[in-house]
């Protein structure tokens, strides 16, 4: 872990010809989605992963199918990379619109590389170093033939490799792996474009070159190699590692890639994934799988989660194990399908009807997506309950590198328990947690159980008894108190006590951690507490909150009618602590570190004024 007081990102500031050493760099590639900038962004991310460097990416994808303006931002370097970076050190602009929309993201002193075939920059603007390269023309010349400007992404990759002194051998290996399945032509053309970019005489232009500081490159603590993937992929393989083999879903961005991967992968593991007719059908298939004895997964994004709600209520009542992933996006309704928001918290916690408690978890980064899927499966089985994983658009598409998990150690084999149940088997015992007996298991008494959404007695018979409804409601609630008792008090990072505690959940973990570093550097006594278990909440939070004059909950949703975001409202209601306050935003973009720093500073000054 890097100290939160570590110096702010040193950016490249070069004099001509000089080779500068740097710790980390933010490169923003701006073009159109069909230019393959995601592809080279991915290469850079994986290269960083293979070089034991930290990496974090950020992309925006147009929601229109035919493509449109798109960016991919990579931050790579040594030490802890917690956010994708507020400002870019390097901007590669493929088009005039890319230049115009993204110049403001380039920091003063940054470097602009632009395609002279498409971009006319304002050369009087001396805030940046502008390097013009005929990216399109040079690519066409290098590759030749009918492929036109296809390959200019690889040309740019070559150029970047030269400027940052990247490991060309490793990069070439990545390119070959990626295109290896295709015809030889494609690999050859890709390498022609790459080599042309690498060989481009950029040093003739007034510029400097960079090298990552090898000395600080942190070999991973586990000694295991790094793997690089996005959050949806990490969730998918987390589920498989957890022994989940069955599922069902209906397509919706940004959830779809999880269901696509599961559909392709599960048959290899002897399982299957059904594309259902709609989201309520999908959760029903999944509950059917779980009822048949195979813990199953369903998922969606905002509107689709709403459609699942009636069935979720049934799963709570019938106490069926189930995993539900919700990849949050901007809402309500179709909202902003390719933007990020954390506005489904209340829906995840309280959606459906009646008193319907369930487990809600939120991963804090890509690596955590993998491990939280395993935890979700364990909790679903142990407490015979639906578990919702609240991830979001930012985590879904963000690529990060992390230590390869020790799969042999953590893999859970799928299991189907059809053992005969004793004569005194009860489907809904009042003195124990429910253990579902799937069909195929013989029951000693010869009396077979009916699982049901009607209020029921211990044997599953419908009941209208007021006393039983009270007892059964308590049974469905108390198991989560038992679960809460097993959750450790979340780690507090930073000052033991002081002026402000920053509380976050989900994908804001990285930017909040970086913001904390800056606040403490400025002399504020501050700390961070990040929640992964949103329902039930871990114990001991009230004591942590009391140690700080202010508790500011940072989240990406609306401040609502009363001035508090969804988690802030929840914590205020739960702990009745007036120091709990709120920092929210609803622009559909991830938090920038500077936004958190200034938002928190503002609130602190307002509090002392």
């Amino acid at each position, binding site marked *: 872990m890097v100290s939160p007081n570590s110096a702010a990102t040193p950016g490249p500031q070069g004099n001509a010809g000089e080779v500068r050493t740097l710790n980390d760099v933010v490169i923003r590639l701006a073009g159109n989605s069909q230019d393959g900038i995601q592809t080279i962004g991915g290469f850079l991310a994986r290269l960083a992963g293979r070089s034991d460097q930290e990496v974090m990416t950020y992309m925006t994808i147009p929601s229109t199918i035919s493509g449109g303006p798109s960016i991919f931002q990579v931050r790579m370097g040594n030490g802890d990379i917690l956010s994708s970076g507020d400002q870019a050190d390097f901007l590669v602009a493929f088009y005039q619109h890319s230049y115009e929309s993204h110049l403001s993201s380039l920091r003063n002193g940054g470097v602009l590389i632009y395609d002279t075939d498409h971009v006319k920059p304002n050369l009087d603007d001396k805030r940046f170093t502008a390097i013009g390269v005929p990216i399109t023309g040079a690519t066409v010349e290098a590759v030749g033939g009918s492929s036109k400007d296809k390959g200019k992404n690889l040309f740019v990759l070559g150029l970047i490799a030269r400027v940052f002194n990247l490991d060309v051998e490793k990069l070439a290996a990545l390119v070959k792996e990626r295109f290896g399945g295709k015809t030889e032509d494609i690999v050859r053309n890709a390498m022609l474009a790459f080599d042309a970019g690498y060989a481009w005489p950029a040093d003739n232009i007034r510029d400097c070159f960079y090298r990552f500081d090898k000395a600080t490159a942190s070999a991973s603590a586990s000694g295991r190699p790094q793997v690089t993937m996005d959050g949806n992929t990490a969730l998918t393989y987390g589920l498989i590692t957890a022994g989940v083999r069955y599922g069902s879903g209906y397509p919706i961005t940004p959830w779809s890639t999880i269901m696509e991967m599961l559909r392709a992968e599960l048959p290899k593991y002897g399982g299957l994934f059904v594309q259902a007719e709609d989201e309520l059908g999908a959760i029903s298939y999944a509950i*059917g*799988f779980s009822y048949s004895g195979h813990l199953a997964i369903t998922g969606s994004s905002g509107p689709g989660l709403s459609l699942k709600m009636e069935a979720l209520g049934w799963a709570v009542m019938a106490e069926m194990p189930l995993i539900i992933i919700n990849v949050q996006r901007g809402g309500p309704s179709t909202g902003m399908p390719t933007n990020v928001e954390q506005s489904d918290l209340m829906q995840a916690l309280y959606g459906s009807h009646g008193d319907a408690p369930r487990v809600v978890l939120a991963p804090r980064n890509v690596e955590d997506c993998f491990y939280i899927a395993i935890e979700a499966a364990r909790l679903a089985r142990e407490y015979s309950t639906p578990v919702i994983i609240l991830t979001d658009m930012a985590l879904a598409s963000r690529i990060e590198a992390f230590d390869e998990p020790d799969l042999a150690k953590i893999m859970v084999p799928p299991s189907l328990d059809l053992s005969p149940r004793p004569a005194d088997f009860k489907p809904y015992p009042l003195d124990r947690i429910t253990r579902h007996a799937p069909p195929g298991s013989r029951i000693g008494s010869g009396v077979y159980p009916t699982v049901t959404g009607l209020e029921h007695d211990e044997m599953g018979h419908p009941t209208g008894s007021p006393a039983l409804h009270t007892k059964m409601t308590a049974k469905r609630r108390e198991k989560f108190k038992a679960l809460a008792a097993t959750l450790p008090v979340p780690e507090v990072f930073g000052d033991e006590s002081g002026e402000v505690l920053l509380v976050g959940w989900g994908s804001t973990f990285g930017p909040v951690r970086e913001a904390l570093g800056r606040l403490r550097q400025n002399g504020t006594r501050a700390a961070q507490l990040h929640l992964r278990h949103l329902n039930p909440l871990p114990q001991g939070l009230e004591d942590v909150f009391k140690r700080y004059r202010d508790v500011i909950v940072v989240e990406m949703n609306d401040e609502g009618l009363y001035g508090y975001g969804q988690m802030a409202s929840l914590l205020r209601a739960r702990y009745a602590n007036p120091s709990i306050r709120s920092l929210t935003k609803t622009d559909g973009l991830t938090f920038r570190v500077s936004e958190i720093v200034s938002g928190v500073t503002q609130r602190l000054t307002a509090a002392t004024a």
Partner: protein
Amino acid sequence: MSAPSTLSPAAPATDRAPLTKKSLTADHPTWCPGCGDFAVLACYYRALEKLNYPHEKIVTMAGIGCSSRFPYFVNSHGGHYIHGRSLPFSAGISLGRDDLHVFVFGGDGDGFSIGGNHLDHVARKNVRLTYVIMDNFVYGLTKKQTSPTSPIGFKTKTDPTGSFDQPINPMRKLVDSGATFIARSHATQVNHMTEMIMRAAQHDGFSVVEILSECVEFYPGAFDAANPRKGGAFPLIDEKKHDGSPEDANRHDTSDDLAAFRLASELWPGRFGVFYEKKRPTKNQLEADLIARAREKTKGASDLQLLQNTFARMR
């Protein structure tokens, strides 16, 4: 590593005491005296006795409605799910466990209105299970509202001057949706009903039986026209025997969907028996084949090795 699907629904249990009405009976039905659903329940017991599947391999599912209370009255594994969604739930059971015999019960509102889209898609996918629709042309549980099969002119609480929306024709809908066994019966015709349920159970695919089951409370006499004891007629479908005889030429070819569609278009009360029966690969089989092909490609790698290889590619 989980074993690939074997597609072997449990064979009749010969090594045990046979299933009896007694062993299959659970709670006493809560239906109104005289409700047609009692007879459907009795025929289900009879069919199960004859089929004699291992008791623990029988699953009795339902949605919500008077008819959907069914699972409480049957001693078998089962569930009472939510209104209209019992089919995808049951399809999950069938696809998850090829050894089980899955039966689903429900009403006309449950199946054709709120669950109409699920019915179309589970039928299209030809998931192996048996679906019995107890059609009473009315919403019973919620006390007499218009159902998607209510005839034009029928007075309900939601159409006090008489319903005027075009009712659906269940047989035509089912032929169109792609169900591979489609039959129709009447709750007063016990032998016929039992036979239809048994043939449906033995069909390898999505089988559905619509049973006209009178709601004596809210639509008495609805099906008298097809009840010989009430002066009606119970015309049976004469199924083609493919024996080359001259009379066979006029019989109904159950593998012909257009003929089934025409038969379903006859005037009320129409015909009873098997409208359509076709062998088409089940989703259960196609998914099992997909798994087999995927596993062939992985050349016997264990789950752990597969996963390790995948992670190695992401280094």
